[in-house]
């Protein structure tokens, strides 16, 4: 009796958590393939036999949807790439080239994470206005890469420390210089770490709302997250909200994430937990 009971418990938990975590995501995706008049009907539609891509067509062909998608992609890809490289170089110095004050500098870098985003925004906006960086994807990338650097650097330090230093020493003894050692020895060994950090940072910046919300004022730099918010505010009367467009935007944002999670589950989880359990 007892053993049967303990065998069933995980499946009860499985079903419960699948419903709790899966249904909302499923529901958002479902809304995006419903025809506009079935969206938000009462009682709610729970499945459909006739999915349609109408709302996607409307989202990407009419209006600025395709530009938002482009901005989101450029923003997320470049922010994560830039942050991974900036963080790698800093982390290499912290992990391998012990210098005076390196501990304090690393701590400083980490402590900047505790500064609330909103507590830096007004001066940043004034600075960006002076530099002409408001409403540019480049300006946003700079901000997002910066936000990502401390955590990335901190995780990178532990990844670098896992590589035996003897490998680098051997390279130096064989006459390799610093750049060659980094390029030929360290970087190839760090590839899994690079991929993990790139994935995590891509997800974070793909999801970023606050900076584009504050710094973007046109389709030149607006991302999908801001586009979604705008659709939500477009008509404050509930019936007039473009539900079909909103669900299409939401689905366009979620689908790449689902693909990444499905393909790279292990790496993402490893990166997520690396900081807390190292």
């Amino acid at each position, binding site marked *: 009796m007892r053993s049967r009971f303990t065998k069933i418990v*995980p499946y009860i938990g499985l079903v419960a958590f*699948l419903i709790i975590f899966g249904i909302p995501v499923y529901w958002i995706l479902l809304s995006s393939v419903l025809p506009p008049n079935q969206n938000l009907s009462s009682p709610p539609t729970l499945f459909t036999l006739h999915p349609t891509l109408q709302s996607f067509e409307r989202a990407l062909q009419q209006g600025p949807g395709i530009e938002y998608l482009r901005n989101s992609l450029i923003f997320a890809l470049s922010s994560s790439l830039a942050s991974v490289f900036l963080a790698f170089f800093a982390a290499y110095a912290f992990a391998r080239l012990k210098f005076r004050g390196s501990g304090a500098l690393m701590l400083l*870098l980490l402590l900047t994470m505790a*500064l609330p985003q909103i507590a830096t925004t007004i001066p940043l906006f004034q600075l960006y206005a002076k530099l002409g960086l408001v409403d540019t994807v480049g300006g946003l990338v700079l901000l997002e890469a910066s936000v990502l650097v401390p955590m990335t650097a901190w995780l990178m330090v532990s990844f670098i420390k896992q590589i035996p230093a003897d490998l680098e020493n051997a390279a130096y003894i064989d006459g390799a210089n610093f750049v060659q050692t980094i390029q030929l020895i360290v970087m190839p060994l760090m590839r899994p770490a690079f991929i993990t950090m790139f994935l995590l940072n891509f997800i974070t910046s793909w999801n970023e709302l606050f900076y584009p919300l504050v710094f973007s004022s046109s389709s030149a730099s607006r991302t999908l997250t801001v586009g979604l918010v705008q659709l939500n505010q477009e008509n404050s009367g509930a019936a007039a909200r473009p539900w079909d467009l909103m669900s299409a935007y939401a689905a366009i944002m979620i689908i790449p*994430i689902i693909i990444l999670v499905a393909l790279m589950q292990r790496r993402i989880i490893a990166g997520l937990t690396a900081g807390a359990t190292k």
Partner: protein
Amino acid sequence: MSDPNSVAAARMRVSASAAVTEAFHEPRFSLRWTIARILGTVWTPKKLGILAIILVAPALLIRMITSIYPFLATAWTSFTDSSAYVQNPVFIGLKNYEQVLGNPATQKALIFTITFAIASTILEIVGGFALALLLNAKFRLRSLLRAVVLLPWAIPAIVSALGFRFIFSQGSGILPTMLEYMNIHIDWLTSPLWAQVAVIMANVWRSVPFIAFVVLAGLQGVPDELYEAAKVDGAGWWRVHSQIVLPLVMPLMITMGVFMIIFQIGTFDTIYGMTGGGPGSATQVLPYLAYQDAFIGLNYGRSSALSMILFLLVLAVGVCALGRFRKFEVEL
């Protein structure tokens, strides 16, 4: 002068000045040499300082420009009457703070910010532990569960916030409809208290997976022998987990809890998307209030004061938890 300390100090002075002299007369201590070393044509393992600084500089510089400098500027702005309508802001002392803290709306937002952060964190830790235990059990479809559990964390917070707005909404939302079948009637987003419950639920939904995976990593560090030894001693599932496993992962969960409180004090997306601080100001939080003051009210001084209060809140939590963070200093 026979005091050994002063002798040591004198020696240090001598060696320091010798180092300076050496540095200036060192033929290789030149821009050309430095550049050569960056490019990698010269390698002297003993002199790594400059290289280290060059490697660290970009990361540090970008943080200085986009985080430390603006933060200090915000701190200064909070003591001025800066706004879109003032040409030359002047120092007005603590007036912004007095105004802000005397305002019942801010007090309410402050209280809900703290409630939101702490309630969310407690629920996340409890739920995360339960979920981690499940993920640690061996059963079929476990990897499917892992992937599905990862989704709430991975999808944009603004998407889940807007999604929950509709899930909780009357008439067409799934949750009220389901509860209606059970004859339970709750006005989720129009009653102040239930709106607060709803945003906390949505936030917990989003954050539980992260905690669960971290705790899971902790659980996987518990050696199998412990379970077996406990089993041999006749301990049941409940005893093993409450008296052996829980105490083992407790320090990890407390550390995570402190992190989550700090992060959730800065919550923006969920509130912004789900309720916009409403109904009335029931779910208003400090970051959103500061955002509204800055970019809708255009009162920079007051918004900065709010931001600084937010920062002080984070600082207070951080200082209270300092003992827990000693771990990091050791790691560095």
